């Protein structure tokens, strides 16, 4: 592929690599950013893990469901931090007032988004892998024992994270830093509806309908089915994937529309203010 392809829809490895390098340099330069990736998931793990131990000591049901809370908190963190990792990398450009430099370079939107997705995975790996080992050491819960099901859970959760991250980035482009709080809080709106810590059946009927429109709901139901009933619900994973494909495509369309709108409104000139 020519280094100077003129197509808007192209994916040049050297440009994606340039952006990944930019974010890796940043992570390397700041030990506080690295520590932050690990400490909050670790805190969450300890809170929910010790809660689970306490409940299991007093309830036969939870003694049988050993690990369900810990698995839930790990998967929730994966979902939340997958989106946060995407959004924070994007926000770095706005905080550093570098977005205009990128927008006037040959970098295509799809390449920028690809680099942000890669960095989301890098940040997840740095933050979550150590926490999974803490879960083994302190609570005897080995998330990797879920096997191939873990891959299905991971894929469906990260696709949702990226879809949310892509939409949030588009809103930030269009509306500027005033929309920054969305990047930090939007995923929490999904938390009660995706039934992270309880089955969907606990919700009132009308909320269950909404819950089942969200891909992570299928993942958390599937996780509970695997841990408590030792059944892998492949049907739930396929349905989640189908929904994710739809939402991801919609997120990309929304991002491009918001980017075009920001060109019309002039908001690309005002990023960082």
């Amino acid at each position, binding site marked *: 592929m020519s280094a100077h392809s003129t197509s808007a829809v192209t994916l040049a490895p050297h440009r994606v690599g*340039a952006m990944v390098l930019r974010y890796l*340099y*940043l992570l390397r330069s700041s030990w506080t950013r690295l520590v932050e990736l690990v400490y909050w998931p670790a805190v969450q793990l300890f809170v929910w893990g010790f809660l689970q131990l306490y409940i299991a000591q007093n309830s036969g049901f939870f003694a049988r469901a050993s690990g369900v809370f810990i698995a839930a908190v790990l998967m929730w963190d994966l979902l939340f931090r997958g989106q946060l990792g995407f959004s924070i990398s994007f926000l770095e450009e706005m905080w*550093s007032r570098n977005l205009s430099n990128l927008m*006037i370079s040959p970098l295509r939107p799809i390449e920028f988004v690809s680099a942000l997705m890669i960095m989301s995975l890098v940040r997840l790996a740095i933050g979550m892998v150590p926490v999974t080992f803490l879960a083994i050491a302190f609570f005897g819960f080995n998330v990797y024992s879920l096997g191939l099901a873990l891959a299905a859970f991971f894929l469906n959760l990260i696709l949702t994270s990226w879809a949310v991250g892509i939409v949030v980035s588009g809103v930030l482009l269009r509306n500027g830093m005033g929309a920054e709080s969305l990047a930090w809080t939007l995923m929490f709106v999904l938390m009660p509806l995706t039934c992270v810590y309880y089955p969907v059946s606990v919700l009132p009927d009308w909320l269950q309908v909404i819950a089942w429109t969200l891909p992570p709901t299928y993942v958390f139901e599937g996780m509970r089915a695997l841990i408590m009933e030792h059944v892998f619900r492949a049907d739930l994973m396929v349905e989640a994937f189908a929904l994710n494909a739809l939402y991801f495509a919609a997120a990309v369309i929304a991002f491009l529309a918001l980017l075009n709108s920001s060109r019309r409104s*002039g908001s690309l000139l005002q990023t960082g203010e």
Partner: protein
Amino acid sequence: MPTAAEPAIAVDQLVKVYKATRAVDGISFALEPGSVTGLLGGNGAGKTTTIAMIMGLVTPTAGTVKVLGAAMPRQRYQVLHKMNFESPYIDMPHRLTVRQNLKVFGRLYAVEDLKGRIASLAEELDLTEFIDRPTGKLSAGQKTRVALAKALINSPQVLLLDEPTASLDPDTADWVRSHLERFREEHGATVLLASHNMAEVERLCERVIIMKRGRIEDDDTPQRLLVRYGRETLEQVFLDVVRGRGEAREAAQ
């Protein structure tokens, strides 16, 4: 792609309206390849919006912009690798070192022999002393030299500069102007320079476009402007234009 006779930048009846404000109101001009043109105007005259539309950052409300024959922003990917821009109002990541920033941008522009190009820019722009220092820890003058290095990393055919010497001390500002003159002589790039610094425009520019409230009020060489307005400095001409004394003064000549 442009033919040999086609302007490097061609603006035709360009309009940009933000809600009720006509930031740019039907301007037209064409810049020949290899020329250096100054874009003058007070605050709010429409200079930055004009440059933003040329770069494809802002979509025009009406009119057309072509750079090296490509319509902006629709065909921007045909030419963005041949353009670059520098402004004190946009920044580079502060935590990355100068070398890291130039590496990232060099890769974005697919610069060949990037290591050699960075070494060459470091020598030309006197960056070697602080090339491995975080960009955020540099002085204003050093940051300007780094921003210029980033703007020149791909040896652009079209270079857009928005107040390149703003807030610089006179020594550094003079250094930057000398380097821009040298770059233009060596590479034959087309340069559009928005500035409030009249001495800088007189020194660097073969042509001056004066804007006021989104419109072009005058467009001529610095020398002819001085003669036509009967003034000794471009600053006096500029003040005549923006204060509405332009036409009367010209008529008196």
